[in-house]
C-alpha cells in the first residue's frame, strides 16, 4: 500500500531542483494566465453573479441528474446519435473497441479529453494495434514524450521550447537547435495533417452536454476537435455523466466563464455544437460514470462534480505553480486534482491534500464556486482518520494537536521556537538538497516578544494607568 503512494512533495522537489529554468518559467507563465483571467473577469460587471448562477445551475443539474441524463439520452437518440453507457473505464474502453473493431478502424485521432485520460484509453487502444494520434499540439508533445498532460488546458506548460525542440527533433526530424514556437508548430502541423487524413475515427471529449436538445459542446483553440469530427466518417465522444446542463441558454453563462477563467481570453477560438451525426457521418456518445455517481453521494465532496475543467485553480495555486503538474502523479493535478484524485484511490493519493497552503485562492477564482480549499482540509481529515499518513507525519500532527490543546505547552513551544530559530544553522533551513522549497525564501525574523508577552505587558501597563 505505502509503496505506491504518490510522493508529491518529493516529485515537486525534483521539478524545482532540476535546474534554474523550468520552475521559474512554469511559475511565470501560469501567473500570467492568472493575471489575464483577473483582467477578463473585471471587464464583466456581472462576473460574480455569473459565478453564483453557474454554481446553482450545476447544483440544480446534479441534484436532478437522473432526470437530465434521461432527457439528454432521449434527445440525442432522436437526433440520430448512438448512445452507450459505461460504468467504469474498462466498460468505456470495451465499448469503444467494439465500435472501432466492427468497422476495422486501425487509426484514430483524438482531441483533449480528461475522461479518456482517466480511462487510460490510448494505452488500451495501442495494445490492440490501433494507432492513436493526439491532435491538440500540447497533448501531442506529451504523447511523444510518453508523459500524461501536466495541466488541464496547457498540457505541456511544464516544458520549455528547448525541451520541445529536442522531442520534435527526435520524433519528426526537426532542427534540435531551432526552438522557435512558430517553426515547431509548423513542423507538427505538417506531420499531424497526414495522420488526420488517414484516421478512421475522430474522438473528442465533451465540455457541456445540453439535456433539452441532446447536443454537446466542445471548445478548442486549435480547431483540432472539429477536424476529428468533420474529416473521418465517425465521431465518438466520451462524456462524463456530470457534464450536463439543462438548457441551451445556460451556455450563454458557461461559455462566458470558461475561457476567461482558463486563459483570460473571451472564448476559445472554436465553440462547436454537435446535435446528432453530421450529414453522411456517424455520431457515438459514450456516457461514462467511472466513480462519479459514488462521488455524488459524498456529502463533503459532491460539489467537485461542478468542475468545468478550466484550470483556473491550478494557475493561481502557489504550490502547483512551483511543483509542475506531473508531481501529483495523477490524472488531475493542482487543487482540483487534490480533491478529485482521492475519490479514485484514497491510499495512493493520500499525500495530495497536504500539498497545499490552504490559502484559499483556488476557491476564489473557481468559476462555479467549488469550495476547493475547504474540501482539501476535509480530505486531510479523511486521511488522518483512516491513518493513511506516514508515521512521521502522524507523530508531528499528533504533537501539534497536543500543543495547541494545552495553552501552557503552546506558550513554551512558542518561546522555544523563537530561541531555536536563532541557533538553527542557516544551511539546515535552506540547504538546497534538504529543502528545495526554501531556496527562494527567507523565514521571517521572529519577534523579540511573542504576541502573548506583548499583550500581557501592555495589559499590565493599562491596568497601572490611573482611572479617569
Amino acid at each position: 500500500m505505502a509503496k505506491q503512494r504518490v510522493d508529491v512533495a518529493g516529485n515537486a522537489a525534483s521539478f524545482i531542483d532540476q535546474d534554474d529554468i523550468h520552475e521559474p518559467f512554469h511559475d511565470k507563465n501560469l501567473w500570467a494566465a492568472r493575471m489575464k483571467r483577473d483582467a477578463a473577469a473585471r471587464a464583466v460587471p456581472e462576473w460574480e453573479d455569473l459565478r453564483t448562477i453557474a454554481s446553482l445551475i450545476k447544483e440544480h443539474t446534479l441534484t436532478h441528474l437522473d432526470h437530465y441524463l434521461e432527457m439528454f439520452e432521449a434527445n440525442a437518440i432522436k437526433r440520430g446519435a448512438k448512445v452507450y453507457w459505461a460504468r467504469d473505464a474498462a466498460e468505456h474502453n470495451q465499448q469503444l473497441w467494439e465500435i472501432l473493431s466492427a468497422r476495422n478502424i486501425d487509426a484514430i485521432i483524438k482531441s483533449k479529453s480528461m475522461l479518456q485520460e482517466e480511462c487510460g484509453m490510448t494505452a488500451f487502444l495501442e495494445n490492440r494495434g490501433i494507432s492513436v494520434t493526439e491532435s491538440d499540439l500540447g497533448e501531442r508533445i506529451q504523447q511523444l514524450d510518453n508523459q500524461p498532460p501536466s495541466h488541464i488546458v496547457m498540457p505541456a506548460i511544464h516544458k520549455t521550447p528547448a525541451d520541445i525542440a529536442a522531442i520534435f527533433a527526435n520524433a519528426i526530424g526537426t532542427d534540435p537547435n531551432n526552438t522557435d514556437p512558430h517553426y515547431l508548430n509548423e513542423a507538427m502541423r505538417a506531420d499531424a495533417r497526414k495522420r488526420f487524413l488517414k484516421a478512421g475515427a475522430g474522438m473528442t471529449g465533451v465540455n457541456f452536454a445540453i439535456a433539452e436538445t441532446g447536443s454537446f459542446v466542445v471548445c478548442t483553440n486549435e480547431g483540432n476537435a472539429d477536424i476529428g469530427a468533420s474529416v473521418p466518417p465517425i465521431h465518438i465522444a466520451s462524456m462524463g455523466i456530470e457534464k450536463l446542463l439543462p438548457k441551451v441558454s445556460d451556455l450563454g453563462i458557461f461559455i462566458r466563464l470558461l475561457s476567461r477563467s482558463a486563459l483570460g481570453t473571451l472564448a476559445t477560438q472554436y465553440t462547436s455544437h454537435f446535435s446528432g451525426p453530421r450529414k453522411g457521418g456517424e455520431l457515438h456518445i459514450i456516457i461514462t460514470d467511472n466513480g462519479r455517481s459514488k462521488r455524488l453521494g459524498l456529502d463533503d465532496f459532491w460539489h467537485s462534480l461542478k468542475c468545468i475543467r478550466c484550470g483556473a485553480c491550478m494557475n493561481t495555486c502557489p504550490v502547483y505553480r512551483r511543483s509542475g503538474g506531473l508531481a501529483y502523479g495523477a490524472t488531475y493535478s493542482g487543487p482540483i486534482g487534490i480533491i478529485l484524485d482521492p475519490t479514485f484511490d484514497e491510499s495512493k493519493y493520500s499525500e495530495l491534500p497536504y500539498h497545499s497552503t490552504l490559502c484559499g485562492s483556488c476557491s476564489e477564482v473557481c468559476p462555479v464556486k467549488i469550495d476547493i480549499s475547504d474540501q482539501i482540509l476535509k480530505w486531510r481529515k479523511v486521511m488522518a482518520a483512516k491513518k493513511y499518513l506516514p508515521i512521521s507525519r502522524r507523530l508531528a500532527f499528533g504533537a501539534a494537536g497536543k500543543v495547541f490543546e494545552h495553552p501552557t505547552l503552546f506558550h513554551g513551544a512558542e518561546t522555544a521556537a523563537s530561541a531555536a530559530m536563532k541557533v538553527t544553522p542557516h544551511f539546515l533551513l535552506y540547504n538546497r538538497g534538504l529543502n528545495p522549497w526554501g531556496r527562494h525564501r527567507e523565514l521571517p525574523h521572529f519577534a523579540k516578544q511573542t504576541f502573548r508577552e506583548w499583550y500581557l505587558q501592555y495589559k499590565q501597563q493599562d491596568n497601572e494607568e490611573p482611572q479617569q
Partner: protein
Amino acid sequence: MNLNPREQILDAVRQHLPTEKVEYPAVPVFQKTIPVLLPAFEARLRDAGATVHKPADLAAAQALLAQEHADAKVICSATPDLQGNRDIHKVINPHELADVDVGVIRAGFGVAENGMVWLTQEDLVVNALGFLSQHLVILLDPAALVADMYDAYLRVHLEDTAYGCFMMGPSATADIGAVLVHGAQGARSLSVYLI
C-alpha cells in the same frame, strides 16, 4: 437483478442524489454594456487574430478575395455570393477538401462581445471546409450582429442543425512556451468581409 449498464448507472445516481434539491436559479437580464455593436465586433475580431474588410459590393469582395489570396490554387466557396474554382456541392467525401487553400463561407451572425461568427452545417455545406482549408474568408452582413453570448444563444437553433460553430478568428495555440501562434491545426488566417 441483471441490470444493464444504463440502468445500473441511473440507479447508482438516484441512490446517491444529494437529499437537498437545488432549484434552478432565477437568471436576470444583465445590462448591455456595448453601446454600438459593429465597432466593438471589429475590434474583438482583430484581437482574436482575424482581419476585417468592408468591400463596397460583391464584385469588390470577389476582387478582394483574388487580391488577398493571389497565390491560392484551390478556392472553395460554400456561398453563392462569391465564386471559387472547386464546387463544394459535388464533394462526397470530406477528404476531397484536403487541398483547399481558401474556404469561403457566409456566416449567420456575429457576436459583438468577442468577435465570434456563427457557422452551421448548412452554411459550410461540408463541415470540413471550415477546418481543412488553409485560410478562411467569412462573409457577414454587418447588420447581423448580437451584443453578447446571452443573445447569441437565443439566436441559435441547435434543434435545426447537426453542427454549429462559434468561430473566433483563426486556429491558435500557445502550447509551446506559452507563445501565441496562429495556424495550429485549423485555418492559418481568417478574414471577415462585412457585406
